[in-house]
């Protein structure tokens, strides 16, 4: 890729024009490195890479034509008109063009959402099927199971989880001091999805498992479907025993599915144990955390409403009148003391 670009030479100015090799050199290196270890057999990564390469080749060819035409004309002018300010204008022109080229290359590389386009190429029926499949553990672990590398489903599930968490936080009257409810919910959910995916991918790399980062993101993202279902049900119907039952059944099913996919892609007992053990632990513990972090308040309030026995754990919001009373008394005492010493 970069070898062919390096041979273009558009230096026609006497002072040696800008070196196009520097500007046009390494546009597609990022894409190449990412897809070197592609073992999935799915065509999503290939499509993205090919698309990107074709686009950049087109752009480079167009720009090369444009610059060759322009510098050809300018060269003739220089010969005829000499130093009549043409040189200054040319320099300015060339600087502007080089800067524009560089900026548009940087923009195309970093702000180009077309890189993500193949990962969103899904039909509604596929999304629905994958959602249902995420709760069905597979039986065949002798050969690698295919994992779809798409990002639409996981992203929508993360946002749905954020919405459900918000509902839970508001119902439980959580008061967040430093920050906002929304920030906490988004941070928790996205942090889990991206962070745990990266961690398990790192472990998979250590254990020689055949899985790419995209597939890991996709797998974990669809595993969040179980979390959404369990939390949605238990934030509406407040029964502790129901939550434990759903936690075991639905959480367990989705964990089994993810674990089975990972087992089918790993060899050796110890690597399998490490990888699947950590994934199962993190998955189940996250659901437990989401439930208990924002659910205790409702239980506490319900218990006190029902009977005279107070729950052992009290949160700040309900203790506020006591604190205010204590503060008032302290302030009054201090004021009285100050008056006395004066």
């Amino acid at each position, binding site marked *: 890729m970069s070898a062919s670009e390096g041979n273009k030479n558009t230096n026609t100015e006497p002072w040696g024009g800008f070196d196009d090799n520097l500007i046009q050199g390494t546009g597609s290196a990022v894409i190449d490195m990412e897809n070197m270890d592609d073992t999935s057999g799915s065509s999503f990564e290939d499509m993205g890479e090919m698309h990107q390469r074709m686009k950049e080749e087109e752009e480079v060819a167009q720009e090369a034509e444009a610059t060759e035409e322009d510098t050809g004309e300018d060269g003739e002018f220089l010969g005829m008109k000499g130093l009549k300010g043409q040189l200054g204008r040319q320099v300015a022109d060339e600087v502007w063009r080089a800067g524009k080229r560089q900026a548009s290359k940087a923009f195309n590389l970093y702000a180009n959402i077309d890189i993500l386009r193949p990962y969103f190429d899904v*039909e*509604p029926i596929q999304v629905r099927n994958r959602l249902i499949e995420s709760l069905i553990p597979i039986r065949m672990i002798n050969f690698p199971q295919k994992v779809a590398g798409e990002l*639409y489903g996981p992203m929508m599930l993360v946002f749905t989880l954020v*919405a459900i968490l918000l509902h839970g936080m508001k119902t439980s009257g959580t*008061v967040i001091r430093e920050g906002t409810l929304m920030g906490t919910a988004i941070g928790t959910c996205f942090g889990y999805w991206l962070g745990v995916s990266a961690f398990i991918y790192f472990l998979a790399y250590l254990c020689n498992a055949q899985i790419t980062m995209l597939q890991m993101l996709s797998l974990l993202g669809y595993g969040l479907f179980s979390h959404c279902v369990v939390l949605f049900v238990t934030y509406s119907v407040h029964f502790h025993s129901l939550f434990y039952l759903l936690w075991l059944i639905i959480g367990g099913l989705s964990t089994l599915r993810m674990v089975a996919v990972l087992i089918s892609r790993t060899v050796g007992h110890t690597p399998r144990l490490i990888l699947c053990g950590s994934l199962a632990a993190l998955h189940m513990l996250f659901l437990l955390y989401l439930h208990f972090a924002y659910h205790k308040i409702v239980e506490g309030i319900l218990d006190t409403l029902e009977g005279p026995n107070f729950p052992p754990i009290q949160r700040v*919001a309900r203790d506020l009148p006591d604190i205010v009373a204590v503060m008032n008394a302290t302030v009054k005492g201090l004021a009285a003391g100050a008056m006395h010493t004066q």
Partner: protein
Amino acid sequence: MAEVDEANKPLFAGLSDVSISEDIPVEGDITVPMASSSADDEFSTLDEPVKDTILRDLKAVGNKFVHVMYPKKSSALLRDWDLWGPLLLCVTLALLLQGGSADSKEDGGPQFAEVFVIIWFGSVIITLNSKLLGGTISFFQSLCVLGYCILPLTVAMLVCRLVLLLVSAATASFVVRLVIVTASFGWSTFASTAFLADSQPPNRKALVVYPVFLFYFVIGWMILTFSPSS
């Protein structure tokens, strides 16, 4: 007949009819200096009084409000998009939603920022999503549509505040507010899909509608759970 005549003529016969006047420099510049200055005069709005500009912008915003309240299949929202309307609606909604929790001293600030961030961040995400799914709508057009379709929810917020002031029974006021918010949430979603869904391939409309549904659901639910601290 005409085709046979044209084929018999020599290839470049028509070129001799083109005449170039002497005062136009032929240096590869396509635009003619005279024409460009007159085009500038027509569209330049720099010299008009400020009142005219403001009134014209307000009229455009008001026109789009009408289009949102009666969502027919028109392209007025898409053709000349602007972000004044969404900004106005966003700020109004954020101000109305302020101070609605137990610790109003501490949550006054974050409430405003929260609503602001939810609306704009959510709109950006939905726009990116619809573009990635192959939509033909541009970035700012989509932001404009999503922002304007918050209007029914803002109206519902005003009505809910009135209901909270006037009706003292908790259950009755909750039921009334639930009905109002549900109706306006449905209206918002319907209005925005009327504008956005046309730009998608037909079998993927559900994929674009779901995030919009979620977005207005979160806003509607924030309005429903709003209770002013006394």
